[in-house]
């Protein structure tokens, strides 16, 4: 791929989006697709104004955003020390790393009926589930990060007679940051996916709840608009995390 094509790629992406939108519009107007099944752009864009008037954009976004932030922060607060503990205690690491790997593969979101029994349809249920889901990748990557600190750096520290706190602050933590960040990035994505998913399933909370409500009321254009909004939120989150990762570890 030439440099010019690479520079023009975002423009082509925009063009593709416009062509796709025009095709849907044409297909609906021609009667090939029912507007009750696939809402055309001419109905979806005005629906954003209705959503805004009903406060179904900012307020649900804030609710979801706050829950994702709290869940990720809680997962990091628990997962980072736990990962460090495993990396520095080989016996416990041997005992728990298999469980962590199993939890990473397990469909934890399916436990939500269990949490409903314990805590009911509440914000606490949503945040707790997202915390658990985000905890696993954060802990696994923190463990890998601290285990992956080059021994030569630790030996340099020893030769300078650094104490435990200095070793952690000046050697282990800086060396572990890039891998820790990969875990945090996964944790944020998992927390977002889980939060919106649980909101949708239990019909409670932010963006996921709005999609569920709009479908229940068969308000199809607004439902498509809200799904588009969630796509944009995911896209912005992904770009922000990529930018942050580049800042933490420049290529």
């Amino acid at each position: 791929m030439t440099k010019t094509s690479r520079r023009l790629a975002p423009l082509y992406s925009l063009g593709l989006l416009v062509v796709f939108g025009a095709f849907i519009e044409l297909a609906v107007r021609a009667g090939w697709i029912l507007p009750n099944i696939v809402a055309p752009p001419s109905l979806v864009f005005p629906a954003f104004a209705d959503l805004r008037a009903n406060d179904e954009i900012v307020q649900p976004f804030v609710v979801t955003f706050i829950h994702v932030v709290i869940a990720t922060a809680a997962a990091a607060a628990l997962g980072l020390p736990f990962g460090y503990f495993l990396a520095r205690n080989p016996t416990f690491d041997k005992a728990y790393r298999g469980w962590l790997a199993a939890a990473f593969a397990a469909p934890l979101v399916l436990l939500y009926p269990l949490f409903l029994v314990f805590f009911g349809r509440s914000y606490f249920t949503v945040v707790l589930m997202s915390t658990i889901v985000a905890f696993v990748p954060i802990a696994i990557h923190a463990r890998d990060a601290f285990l992956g600190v080059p021994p030569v750096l630790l030996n340099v520290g020893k030769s300078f007679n650094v104490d435990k706190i200095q070793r952690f602050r000046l050697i282990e933590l800086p060396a572990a940051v890039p891998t820790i960040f990969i875990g945090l990035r996964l944790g944020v994505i998992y927390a977002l996916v889980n939060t919106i998913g649980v909101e949708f399933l239990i019909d409670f909370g932010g963006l996921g709840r709005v999609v569920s409500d709009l479908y229940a009321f068969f308000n199809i254009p607004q439902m498509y608009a809200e799904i588009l909004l969630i796509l944009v939120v995911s896209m912005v989150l992904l770009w922000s995390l990529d930018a942050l990762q580049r800042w933490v570890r420049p290529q």
Partner: protein
Amino acid sequence: MNRTRLIQSVTLIVILAIYEGLARSGWFYQGAIPPLGEIARAFVTQFGQPDLYANLWVTAYEVLIGFALAMAAGVLFGVVLGAAPLLGAVVAPFVDSLATTPKIIFLPIAMLLVGTGPPSKVLMAALSAIFPVMIAVAAGMREINPVLIRVGRSFRCTWWQMVTKIYIPSLKAPIISGARLGFGLCIVITLLSEIKISKLGLGFLTIDAYNHYQIPQMYALLLLIFVIAVGMNALITRLSSR
């Protein structure tokens, strides 16, 4: 008993003891946290219910058909996107954002398209698994040794021959890794879709038990689902490491 086993056993015993203590404490609504004995009984009893097998079969075929569709489409699109870097760069923003979006929010669209029955679950399973497969295959395509491609071209291979003789054999590892991720997602999204709206499947049985406050049965079904999901993942991991 070595120290690792001892730590695992003690941890498990502590967790189960805390649970049993909570179950017998009377702090929660009656039946909300059933004692372990009741859950074990429900777990064993469910295997005698014909309902379980009928619903297990429904979930299994939804997952398997969805997965097969995702594999076919994911490998095809992955090969195309990997072979055409410009096209790959143009669709990358859409693929990446769709890949990280919670797929469950597309369930209403799936239901509008094909109804609330099993086809919507198949569609959801396919939608959730296609992205890891497609992304892994497209990335794998970019890593193929260019010498192999030049050899294929110098032998004047047709497009199909290039795909079957060069691309697919070189893409074995990314296909397997995408399939492993995709299969797990297929199981999760199918069960979640069944839980949300369905009259069939393991997910439906679970939420039905919850709705009728048959909590031990619900725990037993969740346990069964976890055993199946983790077991399938372990099986695929073992097969892929061969």
